[in-house]
């Protein structure tokens, strides 16, 4: 019973944070399961993948209703992440994962540095309305209602090829390293494609569930998925994600970014250390 409560609460926290940030919450769930509950790592990873799906599905319902996410951007970039994930799964064992941890770790650190600069720079600059040829052709530009600023925000995206490549990398990372790559997805949209942070986070939420569904099937059928762990976790997350979607929409974008930066930096450090063979 004590364990059940711990799982429900962990799920609740991970769901709230995940829905707000567009990340899967594996960074919260895995340590709780392995360190506090003493679960073997492969069981913890299997539970994390279910957590990603629960966060994604729980939040997408609300974000779809509130027109917060960009369905075209999601589906177009989803090609890159799913192909990337399959490639990652195929080449796993052929490449040195240490090198990949360094690479992705460095990328996250660099991104957090970039976001700090963005935060210190101009104050919540109005989103670019440049006329990008590819974005117009693919009709990726969108609009959302910002409940914090209380106004409708029209935005256009740029550098679609760059974002596509980054998403491919995010897919490889999730297929190869078994990580939810929500942070990479948000960075691809926010930093590279210049999409506002809120729709970036909401769109990442939608996408990560689709990417995770394939790896979830592996864990589901190979027996590493523990029903008594994943079940309560999923319920907690679904409730948490529902709360998170409300919170995210009323948070000012600056505050959202202030929460996002330390999380990305922490994840980057964690991956760099893993590359050196130290895990924490």
């Amino acid at each position, binding site marked *: 019973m004590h364990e059940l409560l711990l799982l429900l609460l962990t799920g609740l926290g991970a769901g709230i944070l995940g829905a707000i940030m567009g990340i899967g919450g594996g960074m919260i769930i895995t340590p709780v399961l392995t360190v506090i509950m003493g679960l073997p790592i492969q069981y913890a990873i299997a539970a994390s993948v279910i957590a990603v799906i629960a966060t994604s599905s729980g939040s997408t319902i609300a974000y779809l209703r509130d027109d917060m996410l960009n*369905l075209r951007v999601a*589906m177009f970039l989803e090609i890159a992440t799913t192909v990337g994930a399959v490639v990652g799964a195929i080449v796993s064992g052929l490449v040195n994962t240490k090198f990949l941890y360094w690479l992705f770790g460095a990328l996250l650190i660099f991104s957090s540095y970039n976001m700090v600069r963005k935060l210190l720079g101009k104050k919540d600059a109005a989103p670019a309305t440049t006329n990008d040829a590819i974005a117009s052709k693919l009709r990726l530009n969108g609009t959302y209602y910002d409940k914090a600023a209380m106004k409708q925000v029209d935005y256009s995206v740029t550098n679609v090829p760059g974002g596509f490549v980054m998403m491919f990398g995010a897919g490889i990372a999730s297929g190869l390293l078994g990580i939810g790559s929500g942070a990479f997805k948000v960075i691809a949209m926010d930093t590279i494609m210049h999409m506002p942070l809120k729709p970036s986070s909401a769109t990442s939420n939608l996408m990560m569930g689709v990417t995770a569904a394939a790896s979830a099937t592996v864990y589901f059928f190979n027996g590493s998925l523990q029903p008594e762990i994943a*079940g309560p976790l999923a319920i907690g997350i679904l409730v948490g994600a529902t709360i998170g979607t409300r919170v995210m929409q009323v948070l000012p974008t600056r505050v959202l970014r202030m929460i996002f930066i330390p999380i990305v930096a922490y994840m980057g450090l964690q991956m760099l250390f893993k590359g050196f063979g130290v895990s924490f």
Partner: protein
Amino acid sequence: MQNQKQNHLDAENKEVELVIGQILRVGVIVAAVVILFGLILLFGTGSTGYPAGVHPSRIMSIVSGTVALKPYAVLMTGIFLLILTPVLRVVVSIYAFVKEHDRLYAIITSVVLVILVAAMIIGYFGK
């Protein structure tokens, strides 16, 4: 005339989006209810329905266990339904784009569905 047509199209799109939202909500709620039911069974009966350390992980054993209302099997069914919700999302998006006469995105989303289903089938047979 052009404007009227556009308005009509927008209204239609809005309706399609509402329907999609409903379908997805029902999918997630069904998965959650089955998981909750499994948890209630698990703690109500105090038994998993299986020997210690064992849970069903193949389709046939999960189905037969669920019919027999074994708690672990019911939980696995609920979790499997949850895994299917993103697939449902892609399927209804294809429907939405077709309804919106958006051929390009109907094709793009269909490609995503094919890749996803292929990866899931590999996941089922592989590893």
